[in-house]
């Protein structure tokens, strides 16, 4: 799963690059979303242990030896929370974009710099 880790970091960097280079507000939000997803993948891959199964202790797992058989449940728990939070932030960002667009009919971030210095 080292591949997942690399993928996660790659997504993170791509997302940030997108946020830095794209002028379109929606694309910036997408960039954020990509970076966020990258982070989630990183979290999941951290919890992975080789040759182990999901931490659901049903008939597939020997309960007495469960500790030796399952992957780390903590990152999985964390990532669930992180995903929901990421979703909430993204949704709120998008609604800001909608409102901004309604006010000025432009999606370019360069058109919103009247506040400065």
């Amino acid at each position, binding site marked *: 799963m080292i591949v997942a880790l690399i993928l996660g970091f790659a997504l993170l960097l791509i997302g940030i690059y997108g*946020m830095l280079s794209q002028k379109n507000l929606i694309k910036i939000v997408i960039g954020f979303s990509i970076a966020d997803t990258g982070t989630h993948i990183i979290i999941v891959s951290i919890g992975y242990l080789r040759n182990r199964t999901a931490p659901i202790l049903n008939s597939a797992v020997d309960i007495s030896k469960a500790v030796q058989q399952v992957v780390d449940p903590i990152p999985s728990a964390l990532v669930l929370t992180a995903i929901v939070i990421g979703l909430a932030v993204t949704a709120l*960002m998008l609604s800001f974009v909608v409102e*901004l667009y309604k006010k000025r009919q432009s999606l370019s971030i360069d058109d919103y710099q009247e506040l400065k210095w």
Partner: protein
Amino acid sequence: MVNPIYIIILSLAAGFLLSIFDKSGRKLSLIVFYSVLTFNVFVIADWFYRFTVLGVSTLTINTAGFSAPLSINLQLGIQEAFVLLFANLTGLLAAIYLIKKFKESNISSLVLYLILIMGVNGLVMTRDLFNMFVFLEILSISTFALTILTKNKKSLSAGFKYMIAGGVASTFFLLGVVFVYYFTGNLNLDFINPSDFTNYGLIAIFLLSIAVFIELKPFPANGWALDVYESVNSGITSVIAVVNSAAIIFVFYKIMPLLPQNLLNIFGIAGVVTFFFSNLMGLKQTNAKRLLGYSSIGQMGLLVASIIYTIHSPNKLIYLIVGGFFTNHLIAKAGLFWITGIVKKEKIKDWGILKENKFLLILFGLLLFALSGIPPFPGFWAKWEFIKLLVHGKMFFVVGGILLGSLFEIVFLFRWFTIAVKGEVPSENPKISFEFSKYFSTTIFVGITLTISVVIMKYFYDFNWFQFLPLIAVVVLYFLDFIPSKIKGFLSLIAVGIYGYFLYPFESNLQLFFGIIFIVGSAINIIATLNRKNINKGFYGFLLMMIFSFGNLLIAKSYLEFFLAWEFMTISSFVLILRGKKAQKASLLYIIFSTAGAYLMMIGFSLAPNLTSNSALIIAISNINLPILVTVLLAIGFMIKSGSLGVHIWLPEAHAEAESDVSPFISAILLKAGVFGLFMVGISYINHVPAFDMFYWIGWIGVLTAIVGAFLASFQEDAKRLLAYSSMSQVGYIVASIAILSHLGWLSALYLSFNHMMFKSALFIAIAGVYYRTHTRTMYEMGGLIKKMPLSFISVLIGIIAVSGVPPLSGFGAKWLIYSSFIERGWYLQAGVLFFASAVSFLYLYRLIHTIFLGQLKYEHQNVKEAPIWFLIPQVIFMVGIMAISMYPNLIIQPLNSIVGNYFNSSIIVDGYNITSSLGNWNGNMIMFVTMGIFVVPLIILVLLNGRTQTVKQFNIVYAAERPESPQTTHIAYNMFAHYRKALGGWGKPRIWNFWHETNEWAHSLSGLFRQIYTGNGQTYILHIILYIVVIYFIMGV
């Protein structure tokens, strides 16, 4: 005793149900909303009381029925309670402030607000890193949404920038959290072992901390925050600046134990850098809220730095410094943001409107003073102790950055204040509307900050009531302000008398001497203020504050007490000067220079060795071997106050623009405070002479001050400016004489100080009388007033004779002593320059009396009367004084001889009326008779010849030919000494003024230059953040 987790529970439950409640009307939801917020405050206040007073130990709350590393636990200790008390209280007050908004707005705004406050509580109490992330997101999301409580284009775009910046920061935080888990197998702060972060494990901790740090808005990665501060509703801004910041700074505090020392050092420096640059960039800011934003960001930097640098200090000190900065900044900032919401003026230049609302102006002033770290507000004590700590740690760059940053802050805050007090009321003028809720919140906060100030003074420092007196005076007179001015004046006179009585038994005669100058001199000058009509709000309060702080300077027993009195003196005199009609610029200059001086003194006192005896500072200092750096710093501080050359430019402005009965206080008495300070430095110096002969250079500065002041005085058209420069020149003499460091030198310095107090008071009051009658200070617009105001004329005549140092009056004695001491010391060149300076002083003195009183009476002054009786009484008193010490110089020389005898062996012999030094003798009494004789003979001759004089009718010359356009400029008195100015050539240029002017311009252009980085483009701000992270990473180096 309520489990604090109920704060979270109740807020959440209420938040979830609020939209249902709203179905039955907004009233119900508002009741629920405010009850929950109030409940929070009470719960935390109760715990705070338990922790502080009852000494209950820290509370740990486990959740889910499991203990800490398994489940998430919350912790409430004294620190958490302190932070939360403030956060919740601010939350409640900001909500009250916003009540009108909440009544009208969508129910969601209440929900968001409630949960925001809940998030803060959770964030502060939780000990789990990931839980911190969750609460951080709760806090952020509710804040993001609330930025558009007042929805417009600006707040929307600011909100969006805020979101993407916050989003990036929280991504890094999350990354940091999971890698902390990866390296340590734990998420709970209490179970993470910092030593688990070996090598590249540090990256985890780096990511975590940099994310929090970004949320603290470090320079330059903070453009988004400024936009938010500028555009968002004031109530919400106050929450962002105060409640959110408090919570995030606490998060930083919580993760600090995990950070390696080198990263902490970097953050400390970054904090100071933020403080410095924010305040620098604030210089150029014209938008009120954005300015507060700059100041807010700067203060957060300072707060971070203070947390980092105090980490190894004793608890009490941490509470004082960090707690002081924390409360001071947060309260003042919230209050000021609220006031911007009340005033509703975007541009600072429109804030003149504030003076129509006195109550609001007072609130504004108090909060502004608090923010600038002026005593008694918590920021002052915090700054004092913090600087002391840093100086002991030899972190001089940090000290420099903080103090210079503070100075910038003083500049823009006080510029704002002077505009509010003196600025023009904008023409299109919607009155400041009254909303009870907004005033209520602001007033409560002002009350709280004052209470904290008193608590600090009483319990941390154990000051006695005497140190409180300057404050008590202001407060008492504030409540008596409805009484007519005259009665208040008499009361003040009595108060000064009683104060003097309590002050009286001094430990040394030097104190007694300055006590007479400060207290008796002030008392006599108060008489002149009795001429005031009407109510004169605030005048006597600050006057008494100033006088009491003069007295407190004398008896201060520690560096801090001295500095406290010094600051009280500065602030009260600033307010007094600001009362002048056109004193906006003058008072600003004054406070800037004074503060700069005060900061130098602060460093100096911090470096000074501890006092060893329990006597007044002026005595105790004699046993202290001050390092040379301290002597230099203190001397510069004192010389700024006494208007020495180079740092004198505040002086003429302040003296001239202050109200005419305030000027005598400023000139005759306030300048002596600097002299007193120089004596103090000198007393230590003569007992422990260092290798570097500093006083030699001070001597030169004094001499040059004397001559430059004299020249500048000669070129003034304005009578008060003339007197101001004359004061500068005279104090130059005093400084030079102190610098001689000999018996005769100090004797002359003291003698001249006393003399100067009397004649300068008399002169300023005389001119006050003239101004009162003629309404002009421009001399060439006057003339011939001798017939209308004969008593004032005599007073000025005696005054200028005393100044000029011609026989028979006291000034002659002073000059004699000074020249003797210079020659005795071997400073011949200096003596020569001084001699030349006194020749120059004839020029301006002549001009003063000639232009105003002699010559032709102006048409418009035909009905002018003598000055009012209240001006004449003090003049007469001073004249009697001058005459007395002129006739009987040993009245004063004798005691001065014994005072100086404590420091040097006496070098003069006083025998009857005769005073003998190594260079000759002076018999004041005899001189008086001889001079009178010389005067009487020509007088008799003139009287006998009187028949031959011929009177010339007025305007003979003017009407003889064409009438010039402005006849006054043809008057001889106009530009009287133009030829001398010409003779001076290049020397006549106002170089020093230009220097400070350029400095100011440079600071402002730098400010303009740096703030260009805030392009307003949200994307650039993200770039700043990413670059900031990268740069800090490379500086840290793994």
